[in-house]
């Protein structure tokens, strides 16, 4: 369908004319347009014709796909068909700045993996990082510049006309001498783009660059300023700690740098033999995914975290802690208990544990928990660290985050005011969506209406862009040049992983080319493209870190490795300076009786993930909800309100109301109701629009008193039942294990005292298995197997999305998920358990094909479409499958997926499809293959080199992505391989091994604490 044009040694798949027409007429079917729903008139007539007996029955069944094959006449130099190239670049989905490697096959980016060179994520990714590709290939991207036509609608215009419009506008503003009334609003761009914008605005007459981050950390900065005299955001070395007390920091989801912290968490707080397993306590009103991974969840009254911190500090200092600041004595356990709602006994116990397990660390400041006293709270937490003697060991200001450079919220507020007052002549907006992420009460949209000319560089027509006068769509990160400096010592480079998909242009290039036509700017901005500008700018980096290499070598290496990462970045440990304690009570707006918590979602972040179907279909780990919002309500409260799961509830604050379905469960305090941030778009493409609600809409424009940061948790709301009800669409409807010991756990004491009964061994054989009628399978050279450590799995879903990307797994949409027709090959089962103290314990269990040695699915297939191969894989032959579905019925693990329809990938989402994996059509079964394509690839390479495969040479997408290394893959025949050793672990067991399925996956039991 697409022809390839050779140009400048690179290839670019170009949309042909008829494809364009397909693209523009893509119908917005219900169920996300992903399934072949409904029946067209023609097809209806076809079927009727068949009934009439006029045609053969087959007439309506099969139609051959039309394919045009266009060969290369002159093959491009750098493309070998079927061989991938890999480009290291940097992810910009959140400010963490993880390094990624993009696989490019035949000119198209098809897969993202973490960049192992980058010390932030060390080769791992989160679910959002995996889904970057669906931003690149999003069918609702802005395909060309848009301008307002005579009737005021946005309409496609050419680049020439678009740039001309911008030049004219800038010229006009400058002529009036209002060059200082130009505002450039971006996210927290760091590095060269930041420099270009600042220089450019200066040259234009002193405009203002505002960097807006939805989730900024002003209270943390302010608190650090008070306590340590620096307003930076440090790196917390939680991997060095043994006791972690987190006051609402959701560091496994969105807090500062989640992939980095997930790895660090795994290094210290999961079980490994011969290492002390740290204890992790999470204090927050609503159980976050991070909290669900904690050893203990302390549901605290919203806004009172600081009191608890000081209460603990008081206990520690009175029992001989380090310093003893004034008036700590006021925070007696009984008073603190009364304020926070945390039992006195718990406070005393935590205080004891916090001093006993060294080094310990208290962190705090999750977005959702940020109230009007956020700075005070964080100062109190710093105080706690200081009293416990933690300061100076585990808080590293030497590797602080550049996120602290984001414009404070109070300046965003004043920007909105100046916009409203007509003090902004020209507003340039780059990749931020304040119309969605700022509370409605701030009046951003109205203020935007007062700005004479608004230019958006967004790749999508989001809520802000649709109000713009001119849209100059930027490339997405995967198509651009640039750099990103997330923290000190890390200079991430951004390079294009493929030629642009659409007629977009890098904003840096736009600035440079516009400057060529602006008076007086020609000489200053003489670089041809942003790429040249970037190189020039990197000469400074070269001077610093070039270590004697010439620039070309340095540049080449940096581009190749995805940036420059300083391993020897000096650490600068914090030293406490202030010791005042002045804790204020949290303030709440609204008359309601429930605290309202709008919390950031690890799937959508600030809403930018909502247009990616993979993230929409990834079930929320704790609630299992997909494609929609929900309101979390405690069962006791639900009973009072007469609400059951699926009932619509109305949440009213003084600033508005939202209506969404209730989800009743114990993961929240009875006095709190919570709704996730990210959904509720009314303009962001087909996957995001009209889905769920945006809780930010009803938040008041209240700030944290000391830092001026936005106070997310500052509202009290009224919650009432509307009377409407619908089934809440979830991927898993059950809550518990139903008494079945599937996701097992063992206590630390049992393990350490040797009481624990070991049950796992390599093949999970049961007594008497040798009496089978058939001979056991022979595994000639390798037997592939896996181990999954339940102690390490945090339920983040990175593996699930990675699997979607690697294996062309179809997204089916909400309607189909409601029928249980999710196609994911790996899913995260979630079971709630009551722990000894009646608390809620969540167990996450990645479940995928177990590649059983004695697979129940194999003998029942009448046509050998599924069979056992010589490497222990339970193979699946799509072509041979007739679709009896018997294999799935007989699968004890329920991991087989059936293609109920031929699922669609709207153009150009299908460009992402992995050419090594068959795209399945309707009527066939599919399931996890252990990435047989990767195994084959590695085996061929080994054969070419005349050797055997080495351990670790094959890594399936799930294991590759897993930020905590919970999944390990390898050869079970090799006794030295990592997976073989793990399979013999004392914690190992086979799920449902008593059925004699002999699964190739060994699960390692979760390790619990006895006291928790």
């Amino acid at each position, binding site marked *: 369908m697409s022809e390839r044009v050779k140009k400048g040694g690179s290839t670019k798949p170009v949309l042909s004319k008829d494809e364009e027409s397909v693209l523009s007429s893509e119908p917005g079917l219900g169920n996300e347009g992903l399934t072949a729903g409904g029946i067209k008139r023609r097809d209806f007539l076809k079927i009727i014709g068949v009934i009439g007996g006029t045609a053969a029955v087959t007439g*309506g069944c099969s139609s051959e796909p039309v394919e045009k094959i266009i060969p290369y006449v002159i093959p491009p130099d750098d493309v070998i068909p079927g061989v991938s190239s890999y480009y290291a670049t940097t992810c910009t989905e959140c400010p963490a700045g993880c390094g990624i490697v993009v696989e490019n096959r035949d000119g198209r980016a098809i897969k993202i993996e973490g960049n192992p060179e980058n010390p932030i994520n060390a080769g791992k990714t989160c679910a959002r990082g995996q889904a970057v590709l669906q931003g690149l290939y999003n069918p609702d991207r802005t395909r060309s510049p848009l301008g307002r036509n005579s009737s005021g609608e946005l309409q496609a215009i050419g680049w020439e006309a678009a740039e001309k419009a911008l030049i004219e506008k800038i010229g006009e503003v400058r002529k009036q001498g209002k060059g200082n009334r130009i505002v450039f609003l971006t996210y927290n761009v760091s590095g060269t783009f930041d420099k270009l914008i600042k220089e450019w605005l200066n040259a234009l007459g002193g405009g203002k660059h505002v960097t807006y981050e939805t989730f900024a950390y002003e209270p943390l900065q302010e608190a650090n300023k008070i306590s340590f005299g620096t307003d930076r955001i440090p790196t917390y070395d939680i991997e060095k700690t043994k006791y972690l007390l987190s006051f609402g920091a959701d560091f496994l989801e969105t807090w500062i740098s989640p992939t980095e912290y997930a790895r660090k968490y795994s290094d210290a707080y999961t079980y490994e033999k011969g290492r002390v397993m740290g204890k992790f306590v999470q204090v927050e009103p609503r159980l976050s995914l991070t909290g669900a991974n904690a050893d203990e969840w302390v549901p605290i009254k919203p806004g009172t975290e600081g009191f608890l911190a000081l209460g603990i500090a008081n206990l520690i200092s009175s029992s001989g802690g380090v310093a003893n600041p004034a008036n700590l004595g006021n925070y007696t356990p009984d008073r603190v208990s009364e304020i926070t709602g945390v039992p006195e006994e718990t406070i005393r116990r935590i205080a004891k544990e916090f001093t006993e397990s060294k080094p310990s660390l208290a962190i705090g400041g999750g977005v959702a928990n940020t109230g009007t006293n956020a700075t005070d709270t964080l100062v109190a937490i710093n105080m706690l660290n200081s009293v416990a003697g933690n300061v100076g060991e585990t808080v590293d200001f030497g590797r602080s985050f550049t996120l602290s450079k984001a414009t404070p919220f109070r300046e965003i507020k004043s920007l909105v005011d100046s916009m409203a007052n007509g003090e902004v002549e020209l507003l340039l907006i780059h990749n931020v969506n304040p119309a969605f992420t700022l509370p409605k009460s701030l009046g951003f949209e109205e203020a935007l209406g007062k700005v004479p000319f608004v230019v958006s560089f967004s790749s999508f027509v989001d809520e802000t862009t649709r109000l713009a006068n001119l849209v100059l769509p930027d490339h997405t990160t995967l198509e651009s040049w640039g750099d990103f400096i997330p923290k000190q010592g890390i200079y991430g480079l951004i390079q294009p992983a493929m030629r642009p998909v659409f007629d977009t242009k890098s904003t840096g290039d736009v600035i440079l080319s516009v400057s060529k036509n602006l008076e007086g700017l020609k000489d200053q901005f003489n670089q041809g493209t942003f790429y040249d500008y970037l190189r020039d700018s990197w000469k400074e980096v070269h001077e610093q870190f070039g270590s004697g290499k010439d620039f070309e070598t340095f540049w080449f290496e940096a581009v190749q490795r995805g940036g420059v990462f300083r391993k020897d970045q000096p650490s600068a440990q914090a030293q406490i300076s202030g010791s005042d304690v002045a804790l204020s009570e949290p303030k709440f707006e609204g008359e309601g009786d429930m605290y309202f918590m709008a919390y950031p979602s690890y799937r959508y972040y600030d809403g930018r993930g909502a247009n990616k179907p993979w993230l929409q279909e990834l079930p929320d780990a704790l609630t299992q909800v997909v494609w929609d919002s929900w309101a979390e309500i405690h069962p006791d409260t639900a009973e009072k309100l007469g609400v059951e799961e699926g009932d619509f509830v109305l949440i009213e604050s003084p600033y508005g109301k939202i209506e969404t379905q209730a989800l009743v469960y114990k993961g929240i305090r009875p006095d709190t109701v919570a709704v996730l941030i990210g959904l509720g778009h009314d303009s962001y493409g087909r996957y995001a629009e009209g889905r769920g609600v945006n809780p930010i809409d009803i938040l008041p424009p209240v700030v944290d008193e000391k830092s001026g940061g936005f106070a997310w948790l500052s509202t009290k709301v009224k919650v009432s039942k509307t009377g409407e009800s619908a089934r809440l669409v979830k991927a898993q409807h059950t809550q518990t294990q139903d008494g079945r010991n599937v996701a097992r756990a063992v206590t630390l004491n049992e393990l350490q005292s040797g009481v624990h009964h070991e049950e796992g061994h390599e093949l999970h054989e049961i007594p008497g298995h040798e009496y089978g009628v058939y001979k056991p399978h022979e595994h000639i050279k390798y037997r592939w197997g896996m181990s999954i450590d339940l102690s390490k799995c945090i339920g983040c879903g990175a593996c699930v999305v990675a699997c979607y990307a690697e294996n062309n797994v179809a997204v089916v949409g909400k309607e189909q998920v409601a029928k249980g027709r999710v196609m994911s090959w790996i899913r995260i089962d979630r079971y709630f358990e009551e722990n000894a103290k009646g608390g809620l314990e969540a167990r996450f269990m990645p479940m995928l094909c177990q590649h059983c040695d004695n697979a129940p699915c194999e003998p029942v297939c009448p046509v050998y479409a599924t069979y056992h191969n010589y490497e222990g894989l339970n193979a699946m032959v799509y072509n041979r499958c007739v679709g009896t579905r018997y294999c799935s019925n*007989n699968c004890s693990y329920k991991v087989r997926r059936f293609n109920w329809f031929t699922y669609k990938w709207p153009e150009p989402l299908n460009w992402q499809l992995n050419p090594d994996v068959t795209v399945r059509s309707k009527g066939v079964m599919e399931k996890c293959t252990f990435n047989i394509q990767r195994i084959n690839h590695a085996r061929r390479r080994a054969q070419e080199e005349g050797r055997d495969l080495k351990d670790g040479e094959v890594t399936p997408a799930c294991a590759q992505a897993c930020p905590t290394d919970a999944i390990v893959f390898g050869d079970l025949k090799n006794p030295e391989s990592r997976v073989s050793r793990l399979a013999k672990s004392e914690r190992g067991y086979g799920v449902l091994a008593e059925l004699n399925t002999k699964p190739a996956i060994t699960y390692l039991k979760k390790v619990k604490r006895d006291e928790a």
Partner: protein
Amino acid sequence: MNHETTITYSRVNHDIIRMLDKPGAKWWILFVLDLGVLAFGLFCFLYQVYTGLGVAGYSHPVFWAVYITNFVFWVGIAHSGTLISAILFLFRARFRLSIYRIAEAMTVFAVFTAGLFPIIHLGRPWNFYWLFPYPNQRELWINFKSPLIWDVFAVSTYLTVSSVFFFVGMIPDIAAIRDRVKETPRKIMYSILSLGWKGSDWEWSHYTRAYLYFAAFATPLVISVHSVVSWDFAMANVPGWHTTIFPPYFVAGAIFSGLGLVITLTVPIRKIFHLEEYITVANFEGMAKLIMLTSAIVTYAYLVEPLMAWYSGSPYEWGQFVYRANGEYAFFYWTMIFCNSIVPLVLWFKKIRTNINALFIISIFINIGMWFERFNIIVISLSHEFIPSSFGLYRVSWVELGITAGSFAWFFMFFLIFIKTLPAISIAELKEILPIPTKEAKTQ
């Protein structure tokens, strides 16, 4: 039976062949209505093939549902025909005589219907022939370990044998019709079908031997086919399926449901064609007694299954039975118990089992109950297997209902044609029990 006074050879010929008279308006209305429903069923099927199996109500993990229920239901129905004609023939049970032809026809048409469902339920029905072992250049073969392959053989063997048996039994009767029919096309048809039957002693002697042989040959099939069908489930490891009681339980259930449908069909035919003298109350009572027996066997199975599940100590098995009685599908489970175990108990009263109207109503209950039995076994078991995260609920879709209705229409289409083309009661066998015509008889 005491026919001496009323029924004669000539009356038999007349009464039975009278049924084959040109169909009247009522028949045509029924036939057209039936074809209408069938056309809708066919539309549903083609829509499903075109769009994908997703238009049916399947949900994870319930991957078999109404179609396989229908399959087992119709295979079950197909049982009693052969049972009544072959086994009861061997046992010389006289009450079979007047009803066995209807039962045999029902058998053949039910197998026709049952055979459709394994194809309808396939994800890619156009490849259904891959389930047959045929030589091909791709050197692909079928998996003889799979119970579905056994099904293919069992059902196709059963179809062949029951059709041949059905046909062989009719040869003398067809010859009798041939001799009475006047219009040429029908005459040609019956001439071909009667295979040149002349009614000679030589022919009769071979014929009776052959019939006995077929009866003996068909008898084990009655047991084997439904045993094999039950293995579709019993061989799988699904809790609620994986049990050794299934083969006898299924065979008894099949006879039970087959007898139910025989009564449902015979009562109206008897009334419409005024066959009260041929199909007597005693015939019905015989069937009713067999229903009592099979109902008791089925009920026993209903009790033993949960007992074994409990005794096994397997949480999965026991969980399954608690779920059946107590879960989302409890209504279907208790409907089944009511229809199959409670309702047939009234047959212990002779007054009821000799009351044709009461029998008709009871037979409807049995049909419903037995359909739900299969639904329960298939759907409830699949809804509640091993992994607690993957418990699911199934909701039927209009496409499945349309195809199910269509399958009934398909069955009745054959039946309506049969009633008007072939003798619904065996003329030859009836005559065997009548007094040989004498002059006195003739003058009467």
